[in-house]
């Protein structure tokens, strides 16, 4: 079964996401900051990364995504944001964020499962 890494600084979101994914039969590894996140990705080589923007961290989710892509790690990334694209808070025009999909928090279980399934095909 696929292994999914969840990297988010909100423990409740980690717990909820893990619960849903476990229930669907996925294995899950988690980290609550980008630094640990990077380590578990290197060690466990997950099939999918669910990455929060984590704007409060010094090296945020974007930074980690870019770092991974620079190191030619092309595991699909689903990015959690708390602000939608329409608001455009993080996404300046022309800013290339090397992730495969975005989802705005809060995300419903069905939506999460659907996005994950799409990225794992």
């Amino acid at each position, binding site marked *: 079964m696929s292994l999914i890494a969840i990297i988010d600084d*909100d423990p*409740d*979101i980690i717990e*909820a*996401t893990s*619960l*849903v994914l476990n*229930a669907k039969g996925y294995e899950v590894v988690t980290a609550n900051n980008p630094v640990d996140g990077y380590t578990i990705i290197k060690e466990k080589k997950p099939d999918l990364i669910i990455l929060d923007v984590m704007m409060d961290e010094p090296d945020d989710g974007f930074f980690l995504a870019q770092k991974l892509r620079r190191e030619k790690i092309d595991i699909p990334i689903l990015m959690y944001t*708390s*602000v*939608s*694209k*329409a*608001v*455009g*808070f993080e996404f300046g*025009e022309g800013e290339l964020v090397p992730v495969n999909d975005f989802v705005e*928090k*809060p*995300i*419903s*279980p069905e939506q999460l499962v659907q996005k994950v399934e799409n990225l794992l095909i």
Partner: protein
Amino acid sequence: MFRIVPEWAYNYQGFWDAVKFRNIWFIKLRYFAVFLLFCFLTIISYYFSNSISSYQKSFILKIILAILFYNVILHYFSDKIKSKPKRFNCLHYSLLQMVLDLAALLSLVYITGGIESPFYLFFIFHMIIGSLILPGRVVYLLALGVISGYSLMAFLQFLQFFNFIESHLISELIQYSKTPNILYISYELIIFSFMIITSVFLANHIAHNLYKREMELKHALDLIKENEIAKQKYIMGLVHEIKTPISAVRTMLDLIIENFLGPVSDEVGKKLLQSRKRTNETISLINNVLRISKLKLLEDVSKENLFLKELIDNVIEIIGPEASEKNIKISLIEFDEKEFSELTGDKILLELAISNLVNNAVKYGNDNGRVIIDASRNGDFINLNVADDGVGIPGDEIHNIFNQFYRASNIKKKNKEGAGMGLSVVSEIIKRHGGEIKVVSPSKIGNTDSPGTQFTVILPIHF
């Protein structure tokens, strides 16, 4: 380049626009002056032919042609002059016009009787205009130039009295003094100089005060803008912080409602559903606040080609499920897509605006109701109507609905949840596109029981 622009105006577009506008105005005025001078020459040649020599006539004609010539050149270059403070700019252009005009005027005064020519009054007119637009030191220099020119004229007059040089009088028109009168010439010179300096001083003083005032206002405006940005950033930060825990709550509620943690009783389930509904409301309020703040921080919105039908279809698709719950039928009146092919705007923002309007129509619509969307072109504008046959808005409250947090009284009575932010997002987006939004209630599909509401968005085709 000789810098004559005050520093505060360097990046102040309002200043440059005013200078450019004045330059064009001067050029037009000069054409009129050429016309008047030509009339003057014609009249004097026909009716006072004895009083003017052919030399004078040809001299005046040359002056008129010279003015016309340089005015045509000035006119040609008028829109090519840039607003760069450190290079040749439109304020230098004004100064150049001024110098050319003063030279032409000096020649005209010389050939029509020297210091006794009535044309000398135009020096004062020119100096007042100059004082209003040029910085003090430049105008005082010009004033000094004018006084020197006039003094030279006085000196020439003195020589003319003794017939050292030829005098150019228009004798029938003006009574000139026949005898040399040093006292008279001195008076004339002193009073003229005094008048020029006083006019320059007063006009410049007034203009300077006005500029100072303008600078203060501009400064205050900048400060307001800065504060507005700080305020919006603060709101975004704060609201964003509120959103994080609420999102976590929503996610937890989802888990429980969808039985990820085991079954819950129907009674608890109902309360949980209501909790989720209220949480969703808060989240949509938060999103709207974030959107408004973001829009206010946005310098400009993107301009892309839009396909109106696709945009509306997207919206209908998104809102479809909610509408089916209440059995509300959303229909788009077919229109010719070609009519709107030039439409430009920000796709994401306009989709958001239309979706907020349709969403409102569904939210406040009655079960089994209708929502009708139609678009038509009206010259360079498109009119987009979203009409419903829902609860409508009481007539005396209709002007308030675009205010933040405003919710009509009849909606509150019906216990419809909402925070009243959706329409202010729409209004802000439409404003950003240079358009306007109107609302009427009852709508065209309403009836006595459910009057309905109709929003009309008017957008310029070429945004």
